[in-house]
């Protein structure tokens, strides 16, 4: 047993004699085993101190997806986070910031629990998932579209395809990825990690006949697959290993590469340009990225298409903003042609990586871990080590 302080971001949904509606912080002291969860801590506070503390929860075992929250800033499930680990993280974060430097960070810091991000709060830790998460899920036509002619028996499909989509079926719709999504913070209309992972569940399903239309839809939507900035937040947040970003990248490969979908967001061309530049130079030549994205290979050509010119001009404000804010630091680097290649034979290494990647299009998957038995397991080892202790027990 240990004592913890939970610092909870509460939201009073309605005014009453205790005060007006609105958000506030409240600290709860709880006492429990470090291997129990932050949810157990919240429920203890609710059971013993304040029954009005709002938090959705049901299974306590990371299956139902109810208790998505932010703990010390990280989107996750409250039931899946051990309170002892949350305490260590809270202390570490404090040490890394000013509080620690001032010498206040020696003792235990409060564990901060907040409602999920990118969603309106209804009450305390309860968010409105309907108007955000579920609306986005419905956006991707989330049901199987078959050929309308089911066979008498089951559909025969390659076994690995079912294993493959099981990774996205493993999604429990908790919203942690949506909460953590940086793209959605910038563009609330972004379809987002959960819904796009759900989309892959159908695109990757050989029983679904609408693959091309689904891919085209998601590629053409300005808030679709090319809106993801590849930041990995959703991969970190996902409690079930769905790795939504990976699913988005697979959708991109399928759309841009396999189905040759030329999207109006310039997403595919931008990606192709990026990949091509790295292949040639090893690091990103920003002077080429824009023009290569909009009109591949225009360098040296006199007549780029109107669309390309329009696209390039349209990007100018962004480029200027980048220069102003210091994101593009070195002005000379914007002059085409002077970006250096990698030194020595490093560029050859990069090319070899490319060659390998092209020859081996591996789709890593939770359920196809690729791990064979690496060593003989020690069968029954720990069962044997505690035989002596068993002798002591005669009470039940």
């Amino acid at each position, binding site marked *: 047993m240990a004592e913890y302080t939970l610092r909870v971001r509460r939201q009073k*949904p309605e005014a*009453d004699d205790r005060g007006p509606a609105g958000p506030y912080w409240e600290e709860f002291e709880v006492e429990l085993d470090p*291997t129990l969860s932050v949810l157990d801590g919240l429920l203890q506070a*609710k059971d013993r101190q304040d*029954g*009005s503390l709002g938090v*959705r*929860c*049901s*299974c*306590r*075992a990371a*299956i*139902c*997806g*109810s208790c998505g929250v932010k703990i010390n800033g990280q989107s996750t499930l409250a039931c*899946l986070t051990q309170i002892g680990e949350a305490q260590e993280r809270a202390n570490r974060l404090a040490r890394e910031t000013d509080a620690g430097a001032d010498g206040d960070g020696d003792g235990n810091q409060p564990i901060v629990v907040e409602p999920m991000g990118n969603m309106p709060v*209804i009450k*305390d830790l309860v968010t409105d998932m*309907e108007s955000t998460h579920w609306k986005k899920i419905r956006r991707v036509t*989330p*049901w*199987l579209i*078959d050929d309308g002619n*089911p066979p008498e*028996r*089951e*559909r*025969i*499909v390659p*076994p690995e395809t*079912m*294993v493959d*989509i*099981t990774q996205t*079926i*493993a*999604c*429990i719709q908790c919203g942690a990825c949506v909460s953590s999504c940086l793209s959605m913070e910038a563009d609330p209309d972004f379809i987002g990690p959960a819904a796009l992972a759900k989309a892959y569940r*159908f695109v990757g*399903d050989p029983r*679904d006949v609408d693959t091309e239309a689904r891919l085209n839809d998601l590629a053409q939507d300005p808030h679709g697959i090319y809106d993801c900035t590849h930041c990995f937040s959703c991969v970190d947040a996902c409690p079930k290993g769905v790795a939504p970003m990976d699913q988005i990248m697979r959708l991109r490969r399928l759309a841009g590469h396999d189905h040759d979908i030329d999207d109006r967001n310039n997403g595919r061309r931008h990606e192709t340009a990026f990949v091509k530049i790295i292949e040639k130079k090893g690091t990103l030549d920003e002077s080429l990225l824009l023009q290569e994205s909009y009109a591949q290979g225009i360098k040296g050509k006199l007549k780029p298409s109107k669309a390309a010119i329009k696209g390039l001009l349209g990007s100018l404000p962004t480029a200027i903003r980048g220069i102003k804010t210091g994101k593009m630091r070195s002005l000379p680097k914007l002059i085409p042609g002077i970006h250096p290649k990698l030194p020595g034979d490093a560029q050859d290494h990069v090319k070899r990586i490319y060659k390998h990647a092209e020859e081996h299009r591996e789709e890593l998957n939770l*359920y196809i871990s690729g*791990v*064979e*038995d*690496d060593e003989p*397991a020690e*069968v*029954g*080892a*720990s*069962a044997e080590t*505690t*035989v002596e*202790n*068993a*002798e002591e*027990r005669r009470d*039940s």
Partner: protein
Amino acid sequence: MGIISKVHPVRSHSNAAQGGINAALNPGDTWESHAFDTVKGSDYLGDQDAIEVMCREAPEEILHLEHLGVPFHRNEEGKLGTRAFGGASQARTFYVADITGQAIMHVLYEQLMKYSDLIDRYEEYFTTALAIDDDGNCVGAVTRNVRDGSMELFEAKNVILATGGNGQIWKPTTNALICTGDGIAMAYRAGAPLMDMEMIQYHPTTLAGKGFLITEGARGEGAHLLNAKGERFMEKYAPNKMELASRDVVSRAEQTEINEGRGFPDGTVALDITVVPKKRIHEALREIVLVGRDFAGVDITREPIRIKPGNHYTMGGVKTDVNGATSIPGLYAAGECACVSVHGGNRLGANSLLDTLIFGRRAGAHAADRAKRIDWSRPSRAILADEEAKIGEIMKRERATGRRISEIKHELGTTMDKYVAVFRDEEGLTKALETVRRLKEEAKTAYIDDRGTVFNQDILGALELSFMLDSAECTCIAALHRTESRGAQYRTDYPERNDEEWLKHITLTLDGDEPKIGYAPVTITQWQPAERKY
């Protein structure tokens, strides 16, 4: 048509059904074989006509789910593959890794989204009572909208309860916090008989303390049970089926090992999954890898994990016929809240999803047909006022008057787990019943903190507690009354099965304030009761 659910539907507890769903679909398997295994598993208390219906219709149900998009595991030919499960004479369990229930429920929710113009969804609406008209028909239900606290009377020609089990009466339990037996208690209060309420399944492999479930699929994949001496003790109890004997048998064996001092000091035995090839573990038991890692700090691919029998499932529930119809016209029940009875004294693993799906569909079809034949009957608005008054009264209670809801829940749970568990006797059951009755009184004055309208979970907790106490009382009474050992009911003071006196169901019907005991015959079609050996 509308679906009313106190949580978002995908949060429901069918999520937790890990291992799979049974059906005699493969060539060489027969529905009769599946039915016999189920009858034997039930310790001959299951109604064989209902079991026949379930097992005959099972293959069609699997194919229907496959066509809707459930990504069932395939064999090398790309056809549906199976795994072995407890109490079954053949490998006939179809599965999606170890998230079968989750996969099925999410696919069914996809269908709800697809047909949203036909089916309204009332998500986060808590049902407080059933509406019964003057002629005794069920004509609707009263709900509280969790989002804003508003009360509403839904009018319906038929109401189908699909409210799940009541495992929260026990602590610990594998069941989710929402499994408080609301539907069972509401039907009971409306006058419908409950049946087989003494038959409570303790699952052989749950995590000590936390109660989390480790799927029977682990043993289906070949995992062993070991006592603290490292012995595969099932040799003594079920030499043929070993770890895959039916659940009541395995749980009793484990508890015997533990009680006789061959368990670990923390009151557990070990489940050794390391004998299953690692690649197979990752592919087929992924969830258990996570449960081991996240909740027990154990890498199940490298070391055994400590487990014990834990509360898991209620075989009993609202008595229905094979169409899900209860004794109240217009009221149906399906799934764990219902008792058809296909599980009798003990449910086989991977038969619960099947029971839910088969009798859910049959109840729906029967109710739809009935709706076409009958006229509307309006419920009296008085019930809405009654329910509002009930909630108003709880809200007004002062702190000084009584105990906290959570305290009562805790005492109920630990009491039931102590006395109404794997082994039972008259003394313990009597204590349990006395405690439940005292808690029922205390619940009448228990207070809550939250007086608000928006997402007031406190008031819902108070309502759930009263539902739980009704179920618990029925379970204690039925367990005390059945003076024999059959299936999950093992009476140390009556250790033998007694077909002469007890080859019958116990029913409980609300009479005044207390349940009245009655009996229902067990339907036997082609399998005469025989000694049960695994």
